């Protein structure tokens, strides 16, 4: 039936599998012979960047991964696990599905969501929410207008059908993503300590079960596809894009979660990238075991598939389960209840070899660890990119301050990156499971944990323009901003997952960006004591135009011990006082103001002082603990003016604000870097600059003294700048616009463009 074992392995065939001559030599050495075609395919996917992290491992090792709450660390399993008390733990991860989404936006996005969900429930955790981080090219192009709604519909379709709420995320539109959108999906699950499942195969003689959907030719070599640049010909790789079936996954999830409550299983592993190859070899390698499977037992939905195709298929909604010998019936009964396949395809074996049979014929025989742990590792060449010196140069004296600040504010609110994302998140079921306490549109998404007092907050963040202009600082800021957003909701950050989206790592400039950003992130993680619990690297994000901006997306998770202490992002009541916490500097380099109003992606991005940031975050948490805050909102793209506008535009209620004391900041001369110098703040920097470590809070007047005292204690500058009330947003003498007008611009920016 098959010729896979007879096919001659030629240099052309090796190259076509993305394997270098040196890597091939290493494979031959490990096997003690030439591989056959099936084995070559297996090495090709397992040693691809997507599965092996061969180009990123040395850098990833530098991330702090230790933490007192950690139960499973990064890299040990499919996702890290963090203890939240009361015998419960959370398990979360973010992953990219960029390349498939560029080719086929709907299916690319759905399978991205499906994959990250499986990563979570394979650990025995019930997924409780999804988030996402998206990047598209310039809005006004046919390509973006095709990709953007397709991706949104795909994400929505999968999560909605599964009944997992999509509760937040972020979206940027920038021409650096033309032709190479980013689709990063994050999932968080909750698991009881005693039902945590490991992805390992142990116990000689234990049966290996295949459960879920049948195998077809879809997604053949998807991991390898994800490990090269997108090109004009990428559309020919369409078969490498998988097709998702959320109904199947819902059944699979319920069956698996029913199964973990029994004592019938040893391990469980989803079949994602590299399908059967990855799941069998990884479980065997983790369990220090051998594994033997027979492909004729695998449920098929296409005929005539060769061992090569079967082992490399990336058909969705499949899992591998290692069952305790003698408990097979328990497993079979549960899957029968859910009308799913559950077929014994092999056994755990003595030794450490992974053996694949097709009936009586052995079609592959390799050491499991050779595939999983012994892949090549490269330390790539790096070089500071030449564009940087020029791009970082910004002569502020040539940047004209606007004549009409209100017009600029409206222009910023109308930019799709800053505008309301309701058009997107109203297509996501963000309420199912009835745990969503903060809807999208808050600084952080927040869910309650039923039967406890606890809440879980999360935020995804990355300003890639900062990373383009200074990847180290940009990496730091991505972590700091994500933590700040979580803190603004009243939750304490406990850990993060990251999705590192970069260009081709063979380019020394790209690798330099990658290394710098990772260093910046690590430094911030250490200060905030938020370990990296896992994540994903996505290289080769290039279109014919070049690499994307470095985009190390952070998914930060925080815990709130008492959900009654949550703090909303929007103003709550007329008469509340408004304070700004933190300094404001002349930092308009890398700002959205500079980009949108002056068409410049230039300058030195804002600098972040980690100690100052930590003090601010500790201050906010202390104020939240003492119920001092009516609202708390981070300032980000668009600076104070946009942040004020956002704070005015609550979902169910709008409030005006009279902020008549902006001069306190303008005249403060308090800049931390201005000591001894005459620091003169520009007005456009005051309103639209993106100085870090700043938030806007509102409070009941009676809490004023306490808050000022706390600010002194935490060594954080505080300015009382105004009051909530009226129907307009009034900022100094420069901006006076009815909130309904701002809301109209903010809410219609995306729908208006989609109608065109």
């Amino acid at each position, binding site marked *: 039936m098959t010729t896979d074992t007879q096919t001659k392995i030629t240099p052309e065939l090796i190259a076509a599998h993305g394997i270098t001559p040196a890597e091939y030599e290493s494979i031959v050495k490990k096997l003690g012979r030439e591989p056959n075609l099936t084995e070559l395919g297996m090495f090709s996917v397992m040693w691809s960047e997507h599965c092996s992290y061969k180009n990123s491992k040395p850098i990833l090792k530098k991330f702090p991964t230790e933490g007192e709450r950690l139960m499973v660390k990064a890299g040990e399993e499919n996702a890290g696990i963090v203890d939240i008390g009361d015998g419960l733990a959370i398990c979360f991860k973010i992953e990219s599905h960029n390349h498939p989404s560029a080719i086929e936006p709907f299916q690319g996005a759905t399978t991205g969501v499906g994959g990250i969900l499986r990563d979570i429930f394979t650990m025995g955790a019930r997924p409780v929410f999804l988030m996402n981080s998206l990047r598209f090219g310039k809005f006004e192009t046919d390509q973006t207008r095709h990709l953007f709604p397709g991706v949104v519909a795909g994400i929505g379709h999968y999560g*909605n*059908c599964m*009944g997992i709420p999509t509760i937040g995320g972020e979206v940027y539109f920038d021409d650096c993503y033309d032709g190479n959108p980013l689709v990063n999906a994050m999932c968080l699950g909750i698991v009881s300590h005693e039902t945590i499942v490991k992805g390992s195969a142990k116990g000689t003689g234990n049966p290996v079960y295949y459960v879920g959907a049948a195998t077809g030719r879809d997604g053949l070599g998807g991991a390898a596809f994800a490990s090269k640049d997108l090109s004009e010909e990428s559309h020919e790789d369409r078969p490498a894009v998988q097709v998702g079936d*959320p109904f199947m996954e819902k059944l699979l999830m319920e069956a698996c979660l029913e199964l973990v409550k029994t004592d019938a299983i040893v391990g469980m592993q989803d079949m994602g990238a590299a399908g059967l190859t990855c799941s069998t070899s990884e479980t065997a390698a983790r369990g220090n075991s051998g594994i033997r499977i027979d492909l004729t037992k695998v449920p098929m939905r296409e005929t005539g598939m060769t061992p090569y195709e079967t082992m490399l298929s990336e058909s969705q909604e499949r899992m591998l389960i290692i069952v305790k010998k003698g408990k097979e019936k328990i497993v079979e009964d549960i899957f029968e209840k859910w009308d799913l396949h559950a077929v014994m395809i092999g056994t755990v074996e003595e030794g450490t070899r992974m053996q694949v049979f097709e009936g009586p014929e052995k079609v592959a025989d390799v050491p499991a660890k050779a595939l999983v742990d012994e892949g090549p590792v490269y330390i790539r060449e790096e070089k500071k990119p030449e564009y940087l010196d020029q791009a970082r140069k910004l002569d502020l004296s040539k940047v004209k301050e606007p004549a009409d600040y209100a017009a600029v504010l409206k222009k910023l609110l109308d930019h799709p990156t800053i505008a309301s994302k309701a058009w997107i998140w109203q*297509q*996501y079921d963000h309420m199912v499971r009835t745990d969503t306490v903060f*809807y999208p549109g808050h600084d952080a998404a927040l869910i*309650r944990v*039923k039967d406890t007092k606890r809440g879980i907050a999360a935020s995804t963040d990355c300003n890639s323009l900062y990373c383009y202009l200074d990847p180290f600082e940009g990496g730091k800021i991505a972590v700091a901003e994500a933590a700040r957003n979580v803190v603004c909701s009243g939750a304490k950050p406990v850990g993060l997952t990251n999705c590192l989206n970069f260009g081709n790592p063979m380019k020394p400039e790209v690798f330099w960006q990658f290394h710098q950003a990772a260093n910046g992130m690590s430094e911030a993680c250490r200060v905030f004591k938020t370990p990296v619990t896992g994540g994903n690297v996505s290289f080769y994000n290039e279109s014919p135009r070049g690499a994307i901006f470095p985009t190390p997306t952070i998914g930060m998770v925080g815990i709130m011990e008492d959900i009654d202490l949550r703090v909303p992002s929007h103003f709550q009541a007329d008469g509340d006082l408004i304070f700004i916490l933190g300094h404001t500097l002349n930092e308009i380099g890398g700002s959205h103001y500079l980009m949108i109003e002056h068409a410049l992606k230039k300058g030195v991005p804002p600098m972040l002082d980690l100690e100052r940031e930590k003090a601010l975050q500790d201050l906010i948490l202390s104020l939240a603990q003492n119920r001092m805050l009516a609202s708390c909102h981070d300032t980000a793209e668009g600076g104070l003016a946009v942040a004020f506008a956002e704070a005015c535009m609550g979902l169910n209620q709008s409030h005006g604000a009279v902020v008549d004391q902006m001069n306190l900041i303008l005249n403060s001369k308090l800049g931390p870097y201005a000591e001894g110098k005459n620091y003169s703040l520009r007005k456009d920097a005051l309103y639209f600059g993106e100085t870090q470590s700043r938030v806007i809070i509102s409070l009941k007047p009676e809490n004023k003294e306490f808050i000022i005292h706390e600010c002194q204690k935490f060594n954080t500058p505080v300015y009382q700048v105004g009051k909530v009330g009226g129907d307009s947003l009034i900022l100094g003498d420069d901006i006076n616009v009815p909130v309904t007008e701002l809301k109209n611009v903010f809410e219609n920016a995306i729908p208006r463009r989609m109608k065109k």
Partner: protein
Amino acid sequence: MIKAAVVVFPGSNCDTDCLHVLKDVLKVQAQFVWHKEGSLPEVDLVVLPGGFSYGDYLRTGAIARFSPVMEAVRQHAAKGRLVFGICNGFQVLLEAGLLPGAMLRNQSLNFVCKQVWLKTDTVDTPFTRNLKKDEILSIPVAHGEGNYYCDDETLKALQDGGQIAFRYSSATGEFGDEFNPNGSRDHIAGIMNEKKNILGMMPHPERASEGILEGTDGLKIWNSLLGTVKN
């Protein structure tokens, strides 16, 4: 003590939400019933929850109506007992012929999840007895196919028979396309059978039944139901 059952179809995903409200918020004795069951336990109320039964392949609710449990639901309803279909449950009731009409895709062709306003039409029914005529409720919707359609004759029968429970409206009770999230005929959000012991509605009252979740207007419907059974 009132007893309730929540039917679980493969693909149901608001089943646990409904059970949570019934058991933990309303303190009702409630249990799941798997769709393969041919009979129901002795209950006063059967809830057909939201979700994507059978993946909503073919048409929403089209396959679920063949589940064995649906015959038992039919018999339960025939005895005059209460059946409450929410979202996908409403779609299943339409496919099963327990309520008249059909569902089309939302006019926008997009899934829509948001808070909407409902205007109460018919009161003095088991589902609306705690509500006043024209009372406005704020309850969320989340669906891709909630665009209720029926022919003129059916619509007239629904109107004349007082079978329309809720219509989409503005916060102050005006009707208009801008307040209708899916383009449904006559702004219909929920309808009852002639005997008024079966209600199907697209909005999710179980998502508006606790203070921490933006509003408790859904409780007015649940409490109407409980009051009905008590009496």
